């Protein structure tokens, strides 16, 4: 009946893990048993990824479960227990304070004494941040407008490390992780020579993107739609259209997002607030498996 507890806090380095068994495991499970149901958007806030402490991931790892009424994997965040059908307050709503206290299971982590105060601060900070999260609302029901488009999975890209820092808007728009901060035309030996539509567009075509200036924000039959915009003589930027018909993007080494410079969802990149990227260049189609970027 062992359980594994991952302290979900870091972005670049591996998270600390605590393995518990016997009485210790049972004690923690008892504290985590569901109390009152969460209300309104508390469950969604509890699992919204943030930088810093994001909660405890509890997994029952043994053949015989520590508690068969509890899910095999769930998350604990700011006293909420979420996952595997649970969306409740923990029976001990202060369970994280206990976990990270000098008597709690966290003491089993190598170097615990050195990082305990930092994590305790982070637990408090995380709770404050989660209280303040304003969840954007999508129109409901969400229609699948572009069934061939890539999934919007920002947490996969936003790791704060290798994937996030080494992949830019072109990588994200083409859904092609190269870890090289890809440049249009580079893989084909025909990189753009100026930061203009006239130069970047043919460079992307050399990478096997299909120029579709008349796409008019409509999904293609095959592949997915991307859009090239230009900050004249400064930079280029790409957006990609998702399954729900809305667009998302990754500004350089920063996190993937689905809002524009005004904080609005992007229904059409031609009309979005694009800041310095004032020139809308063209729509293009990415056929999955056809392109090569570097």
């Amino acid at each position, binding site marked *: 009946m062992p359980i594994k507890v991952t302290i979900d806090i870091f972005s670049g380095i591996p998270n600390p893990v605590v393995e518990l068994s016997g009485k210790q495991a049972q004690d923690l499970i008892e504290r985590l048993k569901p109390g009152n149901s969460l209300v309104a958007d508390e469950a969604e806030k509890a699992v919204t990824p943030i930088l810093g402490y994001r909660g405890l991931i509890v997994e029952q790892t043994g053949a015989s479960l520590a508690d068969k009424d509890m899910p095999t994997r769930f998350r604990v965040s700011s006293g909420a227990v979420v996952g595997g059908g649970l969306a409740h307050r923990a029976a001990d709503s202060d369970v994280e304070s206990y976990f990270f206290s000098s008597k709690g299971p966290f003491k089993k982590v190598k170097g615990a004494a050195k990082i305990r105060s930092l994590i305790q*601060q982070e637990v408090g900070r995380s709770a404050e941040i989660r209280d303040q999260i304003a969840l954007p609302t999508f129109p409901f029901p969400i229609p699948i407008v572009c069934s061939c488009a890539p999934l919007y999975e920002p947490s996969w890209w936003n790791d704060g490390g290798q994937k996030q820092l080494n992949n830019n808007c072109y990588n994200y728009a083409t859904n092609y992780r190269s870890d090289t901060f890809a440049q249009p035309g580079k893989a084909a030996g025909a990189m753009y020579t100026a*930061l203009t539509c006239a130069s970047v567009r043919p460079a992307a075509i050399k990478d096997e993107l299909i120029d579709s200036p008349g796409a008019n924000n409509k999904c293609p039959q095959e592949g997915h739609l991307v859009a090239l915009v230009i900050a004249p003589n400064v930079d280029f930027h790409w957006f990609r259209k998702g399954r729900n018909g809305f667009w998302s993007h*990754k*500004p*350089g080494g920063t996190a993937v997002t689905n809002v524009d*410079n005004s904080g609005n969802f992007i229904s059409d990149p031609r009309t979005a607030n694009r*800041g*310095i990227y004032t020139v809308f260049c063209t729509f293009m189609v990415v056929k999955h498996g056809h392109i090569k970027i570097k």
Partner: protein
Amino acid sequence: MATSRSSDRALNYVAGASIFSGRPDPVWTVSRVDAERLKSLWDSMESYEGDLPAAPVLGYRGCFLRESSGREWFAFNGVVTLKTASGSEARKDIRRRFEEQLLYLAPKGAIPPQLVDPGRLS
């Protein structure tokens, strides 16, 4: 946060700005003399307790000074944050002096003046 200046002699400094999306962001080295000047400015700043200024999704999003010891100062819109292994601390960058001086150290042409004109920051 005063530092031991004698131990600082072995440190190296790199600076950069978060601006672009497609192109790699500009990065430049900073001399120890210039870094000391910036650190003195940091030492003179008042503590800041409020929310950090929100940066735009696209466009200039701030600049940083990274010390080879791992410490990093990030400046944006009137607040400088120092990140260390043990945590972070924010201070008021009145008239954006720290940010302005750091951006002035960028090589000519590295930062498009129409995006960030250091002389106009304050």
